[in-house]
């Protein structure tokens, strides 16, 4: 059927145009992202597996609790036993790098949106778009601009994972009682003092919920991004599908579940602890 609105062509033309005229810019971005990710992955894989188990166990214990720590240790030992340790490290490095970018970009955006109704209104449709657009679609321009590999994967992960962080930062800051902000003003606080001493601490549980959600989304996107060469546990799943190796696919799948539960419990625990302290 003939399309009356040739949106597909327009997008193609736009992407080609960008590719032609902004290649230098994309190269710089690519190098930058690659450099950060590469060092994070190097850092994680430099640590012997048993030491990483202990370190993550300690983080879970301090941040969340004893049972979370136990699950973390057992889960990681299980992954080592399955022989998917390298894939796990790759997936973890992707998620950590994507979270780094999401927090650095998303939190200020959320703060900005909370302070300005205009920004809030402008961001909303953009965030809706980012979140509801089927995640595969991001892969295409990402490949065109950055080729295959971890960098386009990271960009699509960040785009997919960042919206809830922006939204919940915005929401958390706006939920702080106007009475408290008025009191802070009445005592002569500067706008920055109101933000750092009142709003952010009070919004922290909500912001942490945003980080938790973003991590979960990043993990699921990292599986999809394995289609453009992200590697990791998602890669195992993809391999299993394409070769109809049910066993290999299942191992990849269960490993992702284990990593997801570990990351979720640790970040939720941190959030719960903040709540308790405030109560």
């Amino acid at each position, binding site marked *: 059927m003939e399309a009356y609105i040739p949106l597909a062509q327009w997008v193609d033309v736009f992407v080609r145009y960008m590719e032609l005229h902004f290649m230098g810019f994309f190269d710089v971005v690519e190098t930058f992202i690659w450099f950060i990710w590469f060092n994070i992955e190097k850092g994680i894989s430099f640590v012997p597996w048993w030491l990483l188990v202990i370190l993550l166990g300690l983080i879970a214990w301090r941040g969340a609790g004893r049972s979370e720590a136990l699950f973390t240790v057992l889960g990681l030992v299980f992954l080592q036993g399955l022989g998917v340790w390298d894939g796990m490290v790759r997936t973890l490095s992707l998620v950590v790098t994507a979270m780094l970018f999401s927090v650095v970009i998303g939190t200020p955006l959320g703060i900005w949106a909370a302070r300005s109704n205009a920004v809030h209104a402008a961001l909303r449709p953009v965030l809706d778009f980012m979140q509801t657009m089927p995640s595969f679609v991001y892969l295409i321009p990402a490949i065109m601009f950055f080729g295959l590999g971890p960098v386009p994967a990271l960009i699509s992960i960040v785009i997919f994972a960042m919206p809830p962080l922006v939204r919940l930062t915005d929401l958390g800051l706006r939920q702080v009682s106007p009475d408290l902000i008025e*009191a802070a003003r009445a005592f*002569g606080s500067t706008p920055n*003092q109101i933000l750092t001493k009142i709003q952010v601490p009070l919004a922290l549980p909500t912001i942490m919920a945003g980080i938790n959600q973003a991590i979960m989304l990043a993990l699921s996107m990292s599986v999809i991004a394995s289609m453009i060469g992200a590697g990791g546990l998602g890669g195992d799943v993809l391999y299993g599908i394409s070769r109809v190796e049910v066993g290999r696919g299942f191992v990849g799948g269960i490993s992702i579940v284990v990593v997801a539960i570990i990351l979720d419990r640790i970040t939720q625990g941190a959030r719960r602890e903040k709540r308790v302290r405030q109560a």
Partner: protein
Amino acid sequence: MIELKREAKVSKLGVELQTPETAENNVKQQVQPKIVVKDLVKIFGDRTERALELLKQGLSKDEILQKTRQVVGIYNINFEVQTGEIFVLMGLSGSGKSTLLRCINRLIEPTSGQVLVDGEDVTGADGKRLRELRRKVMSMVFQSFALFPHRTILDNAAYGLEIQGVKKDERYARARPVLEMVGLKDWEGAYLTQLSGGMQQRVGLARALVNNPDILLMDEPFSALDPLIRREMQNELLALQSKVNKTVVFVTHDLDEALKIGDRIALMKDGSLVQIGTPEEILTHPASDYVAKFVQHVDISKVLTAEGVMKPAEAVRLQDGPRVALRRMRELGISSIFVVTRERRLAGIVTADDALEASERRDPNLSRILIEDIFKARPETPVSDLIPILADSKYPVAVVGEDGRLLGIIVRGALLAGLVRKGNGSE
């Protein structure tokens, strides 16, 4: 007629002769009031200029709302607050009292008019100076407490110092004595949820006092508390005020509260002031029917003080002797008379019977028949406290100043007359 004239004289004197300190302040006050509010107007809306113009032409609030869709919050507000005074803004909800309070520290930006603090134009201050004023000169206490739930009690109290960049040790050292003063010494590490409403507002008060401001702006601070705690907090505020001597602007919708704590009361209605005066003036000389209606159910005996109903004291001096005492009593037609020392300090009372007996014994000394165990009221003692004493006692009640001087006396008949008269005045 004579009675009325004397009444007026006493209450006039009463304003200036409360205590030696306030008398001293009065002298200073005449030089410069602490807060001056001039022609203050606040209009809510996006086209306030047009509304302001109409307001100047004398249109009413409702007409302006209809014509311009701008809401007049407060208008034509003029008053002065003296140093050390508790100035109460009173009115029903929606009368603009909280708006007016917030215009003083510009939490709400006034549309036109001026607020002067120590002669400085607050309305003209830039952002930095305004913050400086809020940090050092005026602090605020809120109806909702507005305390920070993520901070300990100590960190709440020290908040004002923290944002001024005061080091942790120093701000804690300054906040602790204030917490102790409001009775929360052992709670500094606690969080808000562990505290009752009354205790939370003590924290609010401490937070406002730690900055050591000259001015306290209090927005219905006790309205959210239950009646018993409210009364307790009112008393504590008065006790505190006598120690720290701040200038207080206090908003309330509760007339009893206003009468109890206010040195002067400004009654607001629909965004403007209807009357400013001492509690007694408001009760006895209401400026309009609205004020009269507002105050008609007040228990006048709680507001009227000993000073307001006392009569000039008839007394004899200790060295005068029974004969002189007897003659004075006969002249005045009374059966007992107060005795004062050379410095006019109250020594006691003698009865006519005792004096007669002493003069028959030819005893020249009054001190042997002196009854020293008598009730002494203070000028600020509420009349409601005096009624039971007068009912039980054979003698009049003496009103004495802080130095023990006899200021006046209250007899049963005059007290009742005073109550009836003032009661009628407010009807």
